[in-house]
């Protein structure tokens, strides 16, 4: 009976991105005594975006440590604890606030192991949501994860699906190096299937081809990868175009091999980024593609991102600034020589 019941148990569970992150945290807290959470309002308040709901109740104030507003202090404390062999998972309420802790991340976490010749490590995880689109304005809508992707010594992942949010966060927690896990405010609501396997991790440094296609490759990460999939469907319906979508998942390391393979097949590329394009993630992608696929490209690599302004408040201005599906669509058509290049 129980055996058959077991075999009948579903292989996956449908849940939101938010729930997937929460599940990963819960599983790792159970698995490893050295794992603990730190951050503002992650306890009684259950997280500003409710990601840690229930964890404080179940694991208590030592494993789920509430902090004052002192990002520089508690990110640094996480680094110090990690040097001692613990595995702190620090939540920064939103990416915007990590700027006050920038020195601890870039000048300390990222440098420690190398600077001391490998004599000490820093198995730290910082998880934080980026993104805009809810009229949160200039100081609360940014996606500058590129700052950390630029920094040797860091690893940076940015999942777009619940399954990857779950598997990559677990991989990050088990990794012996500092990993920034970039979540996204819009992605928290995204639903998807997550395998029922607390031992499953998603390998860091591997992009995913989330849609097969032959005519153009859309390269994106975080919530932009979700948008890219939607636009790919529209391209099929409205224009009979078969777009392939590469979800980067990891920014450092960057899986250029998977990107290049795709473009060698499609010969056209569009990089989509929720953040600013100029000196942004898509700049690196485009410059690697042009080198790796120089003879394969039928058209220049195009990039589309957030308008190069601080995020404005007024709804229609914000809508004009962010990377919406229409903009991605138009950019894709221009790469395909099916539309004007703006």
């Amino acid at each position: 009976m129980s055996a058959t019941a077991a075999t009948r148990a579903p292989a996956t569970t449908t849940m939101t991105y938010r729930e997937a992150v929460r599940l990963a945290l819960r599983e790792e807290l159970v698995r490893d005594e050295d794992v603990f959470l730190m951050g503002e309002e992650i306890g009684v308040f259950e997280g500003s975006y409710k990601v840690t709901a229930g964890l404080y109740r179940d694991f208590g104030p030592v494993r789920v440590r509430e902090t004052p507003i002192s990002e520089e202090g508690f990110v640094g404390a996480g680094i110090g604890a990690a040097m001692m062999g613990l595995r702190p998972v620090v939540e920064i309420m939103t990416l915007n606030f990590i700027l006050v802790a920038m020195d601890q991340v870039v000048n300390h976490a990222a440098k420690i192991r190398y600077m001391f010749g490998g004599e000490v490590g820093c198995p730290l995880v910082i998880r934080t949501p980026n993104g805009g689109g809810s009229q949160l304005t200039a100081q609360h809508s940014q996606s500058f994860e590129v700052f950390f992707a630029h920094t040797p010594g860091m690893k940076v992942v940015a999942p777009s699906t619940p399954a990857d949010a779950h598997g990559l966060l677990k991989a990050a927690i088990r990794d012996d190096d500092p990993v920034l896990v970039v979540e996204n405010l819009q992605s928290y609501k995204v639903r998807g299937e997550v395998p029922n396997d607390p031992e499953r991790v998603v390998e860091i440094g591997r992009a995913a081809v989330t849609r097969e296609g032959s005519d153009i490759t859309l390269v994106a990460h975080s919530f932009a990868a979700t948008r890219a999939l939607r636009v790919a469907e529209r391209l099929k319906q409205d224009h009979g175009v078969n777009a392939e979508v590469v979800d980067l998942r990891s920014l450092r390391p960057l899986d250029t091999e998977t990107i290049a393979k795709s473009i060698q097949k499609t010969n056209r590329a569009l990089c989509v980024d929720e953040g600013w394009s100029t000196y942004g993630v898509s700049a690196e992608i485009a410059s690697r593609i042009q080198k790796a696929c120089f003879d394969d490209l039928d058209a220049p690599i195009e990039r589309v991102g957030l308008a190069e302004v601080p995020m404005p408040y007024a709804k229609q201005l914000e809508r004009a600034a962010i990377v919406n599906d229409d903009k991605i669509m138009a950019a894709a058509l221009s790469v395909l020589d099916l539309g004007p290049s703006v």
Partner: protein
Amino acid sequence: MVLIRVFEEEVERQYKRARIGGYCHLASGQEGATVGAVDPMERDDLLFSSYRTHGLALAKGVDPDAVMGELFGREGGSAHGRGGSMHLLDVPHGFLGGWGIVTGQLPLATGAALALTYRGKRAAVMCELGDAATNMGAWHESLNLAGIWDLPVVFLIFNNRYGMGTTVEKASAEPELYKRASAFKMHGERVDGQDVEAVLEASDRLLTRARNERKPAVLEVITYRYRGHSVADAGTAYRTQEEVEEWRKRDPILIYRRRLMDERGVEESQLRAIEARVEQRVEQSVIAAEASPEPPVDTLARHLYGDPNSAKQFSQMGPGSPFGERELVLGGLGR
């Protein structure tokens, strides 16, 4: 106080009707602290605040139409619809903004005070921050600079007992926050924020001292917010309903109203008249906001840079620029 109370009640209504979006932090319960602190400010004095900014802006004399207009995201708003609830500003009235990063406004206020002394102006800066903001490094650096440079700035702590859901006792190793001024040999004191006149007396004294003697100070005002941290927070997870009720009994408007009637012989009718005018004023601000135009989408890049040469400076950035940028921004800088 009544204007602020009524105004914010209207803001909450409009938010529910989705005419206002984004983060929105209400301060009902803190009107005594707000008015008491700001009332003694002279026109040349400068006020900086956190994101909980509606009441402070109104108290400093910012036109309610400009405040409501900003919340509605209209050109008539104090930031022409670019800033929203957290980023009100009115330079002519000496309201130097609404800021969203906790403690981010402190170094700025310190610099504004430095500018006043640099120019030899006899004026002072008042910088509001929350209780939880005193745990940030920028608090320490700003007060130290104000101290060694003898800057005319009053750091105004609105201690409403919580930073989101975290109590002062949990977050601050020294919960009597005004005592933290001692780390800078700076004067600090604490006052009851529900008694508007008590706050007014202290604020006036410290502002005058700042103007005349170029001495910075910390003024901690004990107060309370009835609503959640923002409209998104019910404000129930971390405190009891009883606690909120207890504080409502010490409502600053109630207390002052009683005092006016019992001790100052003010007639109920006079107060009613004021309230009626206030309600009218608030209604009018909604009408004005609705009447104000939305910022045209083709002005997206406007206000990005202010130097007259900016358009020229960026004019050669076009080739190879990412999709949509050239028209949107490079073009926009010209306007």
